[in-house]
């Protein structure tokens, strides 16, 4: 749009009307209505807050957030950061937030991959594959998530006891205590390698961008992958060697009641993750299918007429166009998955809801506890929304 509005019709403005303090004046009426509505909202909020304060005072229920610095004394089964029962409530709640994020982030990634595959499978020309995908979607979507979670948890509890643990590969044990894997003896070198990998991702992205610019300039496609391998693998390996090349690995071993050492995936986490991923994937599959079907058939035919292979047609022609239809409803699914993770309380995975519930129960400060839960979910959800909106704008059809 050019801003050179030389057309005099664009410059014409309606004649200014004098403001009269009369009910007949539309602008006065609008202001009065708005004042009334804002006033009513403020009054209701004020009444609620005052009434709450008064009731809390009369019943001598403690208020304020001072409890966050007190010793929590609650046991937490799995935690990404150092936690002991001697830690504060603040620390315990942080562990809860991290546990929620751990299941939400991994759940979103897995559900997206799995859901996309199912959605494509449902459009497959292979009759069996298409029907299996259709049955999966219809069954999974129609059973309440809570039941599915309890189902998975019960199944995992049916696994053998630690002493009879399944041992498919040396060092890997599957029992009703969870999945035990050998894990690196974490040292500074590993942290450096991880950091180098993140930097490698960034460099790869920069490099790919620069190469694409060159391709636009001279029309010659350039290979990105040799440099990408260097950045993504070479750089972390160098960092690892520079960090002293630690090679220690801890193996899980049965000692006393349980396996010691190694990495654990608890049955609670596993059940929650499987339940959320399979459930959300059912919805994502339908969104992906709708997105692909929304791409006009002519696009397929035109691509095929150019002699492109089916896989290339899907990846290069159809999916980029389908993304515009897919991304907005996908945002809702990501939000749903995150919020559904609060059903973890039913199967004993200690997410933020579980820990905040215990906190509010021990301190009696329900309003503060619920406020914390709401704040956490609001923050996570708004972040997902913001990111997805940014991504949606980026892939939106660029109109020229």
């Amino acid at each position, binding site marked *: 749009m050019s801003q050179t509005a030389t057309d005099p019709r664009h410059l014409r403005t309606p004649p200014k009307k004098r403001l009269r303090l009369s009910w007949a004046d539309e602008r006065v009426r609008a202001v009065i209505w708005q004042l009334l509505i804002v006033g009513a909202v403020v009054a209701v909020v004020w009444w*609620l807050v*005052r*009434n*709450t304060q*008064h*009731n*809390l005072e*009369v*019943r*001598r*229920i*403690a208020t304020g957030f001072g409890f966050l610095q007190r010793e929590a*004394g*609650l*046991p*937490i*089964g799995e935690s990404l950061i150092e936690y002991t*029962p*001697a830690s504060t409530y603040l620390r315990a709640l942080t562990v809860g937030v991290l546990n929620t994020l751990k299941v939400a982030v991994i759940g979103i990634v897995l559900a997206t991959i799995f859901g996309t595959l199912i959605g494509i499978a449902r459009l497959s020309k292979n009759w069996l594959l298409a029907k299996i995908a259709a049955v999966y979607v219809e069954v999974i979507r129609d059973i309440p998530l*809570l*039941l599915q979670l*309890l189902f998975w948890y019960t199944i995992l*509890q*049916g696994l053998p*006891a630690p002493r009879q643990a399944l041992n498919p590969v040396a060092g890997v044990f599957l029992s*009703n*205590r969870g999945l035990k894997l050998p894990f690196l003896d974490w040292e500074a070198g590993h942290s450096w390698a991880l950091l180098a990998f993140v930097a490698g991702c960034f460099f790869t992205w920069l490099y790919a961008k620069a190469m694409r610019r060159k391709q636009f300039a001279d029309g010659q496609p350039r290979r990105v992958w040799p440099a990408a391998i260097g950045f993504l693998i070479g750089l972390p390996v160098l960092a690892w060697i520079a960090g002293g090349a630690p090679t220690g690995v801890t193996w899980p071993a049965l*000692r*006393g*009641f*349980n396996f*010691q050492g190694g990495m654990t995936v608890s*049955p*609670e986490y596993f059940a929650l993750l499987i339940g959320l991923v399979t459930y959300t994937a059912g919805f994502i599959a339908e969104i992906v299918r709708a997105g692909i079907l929304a791409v006009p058939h002519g696009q397929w035919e035109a691509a095929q007429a150019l002699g492109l292979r089916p896989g290339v047609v899907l990846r290069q022609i159809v999916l980029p166009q389908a993304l515009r239809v897919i991304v907005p409803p996908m945002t809702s699914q990501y939000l749903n998955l995150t919020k559904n993770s609060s059903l973890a*309380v*039913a*199967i*004993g995975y*200690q997410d933020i*809801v*579980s820990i905040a*519930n*215990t906190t*509010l*129960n*021990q*301190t*009696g*400060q*329900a*309003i503060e*506890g*619920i406020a914390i839960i709401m704040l956490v979910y609001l923050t996570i959800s708004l972040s997902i929304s913001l990111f997805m909106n940014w991504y949606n704008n980026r892939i939106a059809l660029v109109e020229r």
Partner: protein
Amino acid sequence: MTMQPMRRRMLGFLGGVLGAVAVTSLGAGPAAAQAPAAGSSILDAIKARGTLVCGVNTGLAGFAQPDSQGVWRGFDVEYCRAVAAAIFGDPSKVRYVPTTAQSRFTALQSGEVDLLARNTTWTLSRDTSLGLDFVGVNFYDGQGFMVKTSTGVKTAKELQGATICVQPGTTTEQNLTDWARANNVRFTPVVIERVEEVVGAYASGRCDAYTTDVSGLASTRSSQPNPAEHTILPDVISKEPLGPLVRHGDQRYADLIRWVHFALVGAEEMGITQANVAEKAGNDPRPDVQRMLGKNGELGQMLGVSPNWAVNVIKATGNYGEIFARHLQPIGIQRGPNALWTTPGGLQYAMPFR
């Protein structure tokens, strides 16, 4: 898995949210929440409603559990029935609200229930910061551990490295961590809210041990398919005085609940039973019996209920010893510290009816 417990779990899960909302919106105006000096607003509300709303456990054999007919039965349930009998003369005028360990306090704070009879431990911080009052101790308990007999564990200290099942939002949870720190026992907790689920996790072998009050362990053990497969360890790691709770601020109502408890214990002290209470009310010559049963004095009026309130209570439930024998002795819980103070080691003691 039927729908009924599932819905209850959802309710329990929402309990916190509803509680917070209810505290926010209850009370018609700022002045309404203040208890009037003379009467009792909670008691008046219960009388006007015609039923007592009683918060109980979601299902703990011997304490509160619906039987095959759906009728709630148990030690805690008898306390609800006793209070209803004292107020209405009819023990059946109770609506039972199952509450989880996490939802129980908000249910009482928000006014969803009038009385919480749900094996809840009396602690200082609960008494002072929850806006609730404990009215007495109807069961002296302590925390213990249960393990599968086949593990061969004999004492709690052998649980080094074990996985232990525990319910969240309980003193049990905090005692467990205190005890583990004091004894350098490392353990992995599995924390599940509903008692059925946590017992299920223990029974399936997810945990090596289950910890809760010894009474709860006995109850759980009795309801397992083969109780002999489970052993309750001899260690008792805490004091757990359990008792009924009411909201803070209505002392008249709290007095009534307290004295219903004393009437049950007092009746056992005086030898009054469900069978002989009618006869004793008519012709027992002892003055304290006459005062308690309403033949003399105005004790009922002082509590805001009818003069023969104690007769109604004992007719409905029997005395403390009878309640104990009916519900707790069948699941293997002995009187122990819950015997009358007149027996050695007994702690149950009724204040004088005067």
